[in-house]
């Protein structure tokens, strides 16, 4: 019951906003770092865990990142997920998407930079 309430409180604290591209639209919320993610990924989700698991076993090489590629994007592609651009009002950002889970690439960049520090 307690955990149900805490989930309820937490979910109300995150304000959902529609992000879209063309006819594709998805509701995203901001996590504690300010990154936009789908509700299911607010804490952690399959895509998020897949990224962490990948980085546990692998590193992005200098060649992967050649030309200053966004590490978040490279990580997303390593997971065979899709890099997408979405817009909300006049803000534009890039995300990693797989099986309806959407995570801002900023979170993935954070994973890469934090891990290798």
């Amino acid at each position, binding site marked *: 019951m307690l955990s149900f309430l805490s989930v309820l409180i937490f979910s109300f604290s995150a304000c959902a906003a529609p992000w879209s591209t063309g006819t594709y639209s998805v509701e995203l919320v901001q996590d504690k770092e300010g990154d936009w993610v789908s509700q299911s990924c607010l804490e952690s989700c399959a895509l998020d865990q897949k990224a962490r698991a990948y980085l546990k076993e692998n590193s992005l090489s*200098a060649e992967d990142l050649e*030309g*200053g590629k966004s590490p*978040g994007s490279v990580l997303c592609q390593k997971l065979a997920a899709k890099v997408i651009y979405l817009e909300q009002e006049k803000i534009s950002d890039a995300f990693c998407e797989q099986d309806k889970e959407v995570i*801002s690439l*900023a979170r993935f960049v954070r994973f890469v930079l934090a891990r*290798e520090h």
Partner: protein
Amino acid sequence: MSCQGNTKSDLSATGGSLSPLRVTNQNGLGICHIEQLHKMLKAKLPGHPDLSRVQLAIAEKKMRDRELTTKKAVRWKNAQGVGGTYIDAGNSCDAFNHLKSQKICPAEADRFEQLTKQNPDHQEKIIETISEYFDSRPNQFMWDFASASAHEGPIVTKLDESFRACSLSPVRVTQLRNHYLAHVYFVKTQLGSRYAGMKASAENLSHLNLAMEGADYLQGKSYLKHLQSILPAAEIGKDAPTSKALAAQITMAAREMQSKENCVMQNMKSFNNLYYCAPPLGKSAVDVINLNSLGLSLREIVNILDGDRDRDKFFTEAFSCSTQKVLIPPQINCRTEDITQMAKDSRTESEFHTKVDQKIEAKLKKGTPIGISSCTRFFTNPNAKTNQVGSNTFTCGQAGSAGYKKGEGSHAVTIIGSRCQNGVKEYLVQNSWGPGCFYDKSFECTKQGGFWAPVSTVINNIRNINYLE
């Protein structure tokens, strides 16, 4: 570096030479130096136009490929011989010099940039295609089978990952990799303009007629007849061994196509999968292009894929905004200054920081952004130091150097402002990884994907600066 007062300059603020500043994200494109040039041009050109970064990248690649010899290209790939353990895609002044006197489309008139806003599936294919075109740089290397594997490294890695994801055996992965390399080799070396007809034949074999056994087709009468129609009699014997080898490979690919490789094909994702795809998958890629009114037939796409010259033509023609293009005036020049050399020539860190800061501040005062080739190490480490006073060694990417991080590398970003904050001078560093804030917690982020970092931290990690004048 200490300072006094509350001075602040920000070229992206209202009225500044970079206002309004578009937030950009390179994603899978290795174009950081182009992102930098994009800002340098916006600040310098009359009216501060927001040019297409994608077109800048593609136009530069085309010019660069034309000029570079293989030897130079290898040097380029190794960051012009410096260090050799990190990799640059390029330098913004080199890019500028390639593009000088060219006309570039504004971003809003760029078909690719507009297309990437429409549909996630389209975005992915378009980005992958541009990425492959821009980053694989096949024109920069001489093709020989022995070294094709090394040159094709990133693509091979990608393919291997795709194959593994589809649970193919390691033996089969190797076979398919070799098939890919053989095919690339064949296309690049054997199917040049001299064998234009054979090129058409190979395209039939490699995807259009995959339902037919490749070997049967190659060894059948129709193949010989076709060869005889396009080649002088003396040439047929010469090509026979290669053709047989190709036949075997195509047969192998065709057999597998029915099962697990359908999965592989889906994972390959780039337009180059047309080489290997069964018609339904090939069609979906073609549909993307047709849907977006680029008006190309499958054959035209194959031609684009088969020859870099055609692919260049395709990309060039895709930017057909002739009435709206912006000319880069010939009187604008780009300068590069070697900061690592300045570190060597300085006696103290304070002297080094002051000399570099004076250069940067003077440019900022004129509304000129400064492109820097820097080490990503400092993004999450304010104490990172890849320049050493008294030495011209730039340790970015060198395992074992203090503060080294695996995956770090030289990255082009842009200084677009400065301020005095609590007695410490800071630069506003504009990145091109979207609006996210993933830097050291002590750095204040902007909503446009920039961050304020101490001048000393930034200067300690700059290899060179680039600016227009």
